[in-house]
């Protein structure tokens, strides 16, 4: 199980790292424009979110890969994917053909129910990681943050 959680952490972490890096590369104007296209949040929140979201994804992805604060970070990732699913679902319902911007502006994915299902599946994946955290090769274990004894303290 520990190895499976480790692999799951790597996969989800890498996904978030790539998504965050591509958004950061696009810059805050592009990310904020994409978020504005969802027509959900007020203008005063959209611009700062355009800056914060890519780095939040990079941070969460990085923490998942190294297994630091795994349980809480995986829960935050699950929450984020649920928010994405709701946002994309609202686009489908309102027939708005905005770019999801999931992997930056270079990947123009039209909103669809399949996309919503993908986000929900990723949320479940993240929840499973949170449930069985931290998995193998996690800093949480090394630093005694997981509640289980650290490998070097076992002997």
């Amino acid at each position, binding site marked *: 199980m520990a190895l499976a959680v480790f692999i799951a952490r790597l996969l989800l972490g890498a996904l978030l790292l790539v998504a965050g890096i591509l958004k950061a590369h*696009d810059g805050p*104007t592009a990310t904020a*424009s994409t978020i504005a296209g969802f027509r959900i949040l007020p203008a005063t929140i*959209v611009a700062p979110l355009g800056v914060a979201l890519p780095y939040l994804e990079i941070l969460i992805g990085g923490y998942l890969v190294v297994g630091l604060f795994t349980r809480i970070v995986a829960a935050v990732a699950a929450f984020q994917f649920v928010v994405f699913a709701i946002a994309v679902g609202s686009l489908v319902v309102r027939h708005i053909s905005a770019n999801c911007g999931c992997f930056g*502006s270079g990947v123009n994915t039209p909103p669809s129910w399949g996309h919503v299902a993908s986000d929900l599946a990723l949320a479940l994946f993240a929840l499973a990681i949170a449930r069985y955290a931290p998995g193998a090769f996690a800093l949480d274990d090394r630093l005694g943050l997981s509640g289980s004894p*650290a490998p070097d303290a076992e002997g």
Partner: protein
Amino acid sequence: MNRSERRQNMNPARAEAQRKAQQRTTIIYATLAVLAVLAIVGVGYAVRSTSLQNAADAPTQAQISVGQIAPTFAVSTTSGPFDLANNGGKPTLLELFATWCPHCQRETQVLDALYASDASKVNFVAVSASSMGSDEATPESQADVIGFMQRFRVIYPIAFDPDLGVAKKYLQGGFPTIVLISKDNKILAIGSGELPGAQLQKAMLAATAGKAVDPTFGTATPAPKASGASSTK
């Protein structure tokens, strides 16, 4: 008895647990400190990067004319990226607007209706082109442009241009400036001020069919005179 002496006299298991607890606390505080620094830097960066940096560098009159190759531009719109070089084989209707401009505010209804009926035939893109924000006092910001989109229920793709690069290439001295560009990226028509939807649509459909387009969108005054538009800010 100092702390190290107390630790030496302590049960080894308890001392180890205490050491781990201290290590945990340090890591959590260090992480929170890093997050706090990132948040402060992020907010500063957000303010800088999502508002105009040099309001004095405002564009006024670009040197463009009907028949010439349209200057290239690429922007990030609310419907994704738009690059004139990749126009999808469709004509492009470009609007340069100011969030404070009442003509631009009224023109949103015209462009919304056209977008609803003709978005499959023509690329629509509206780009912010003023150095002044909606309060006409502070520099234009992305929040101004998004607020404009929400307040006037804009459904066509709209973009904040932080360096006014598109305005420098296309703005004709008044808001809004509307430019129709052919499939092969030649300028077909230029207009300033509020333009009626029927005339815009007539020009767009002619461009789609490859027919001749009225270079002033059928307005009496030749381009690039502004009709009732305010001065550029």
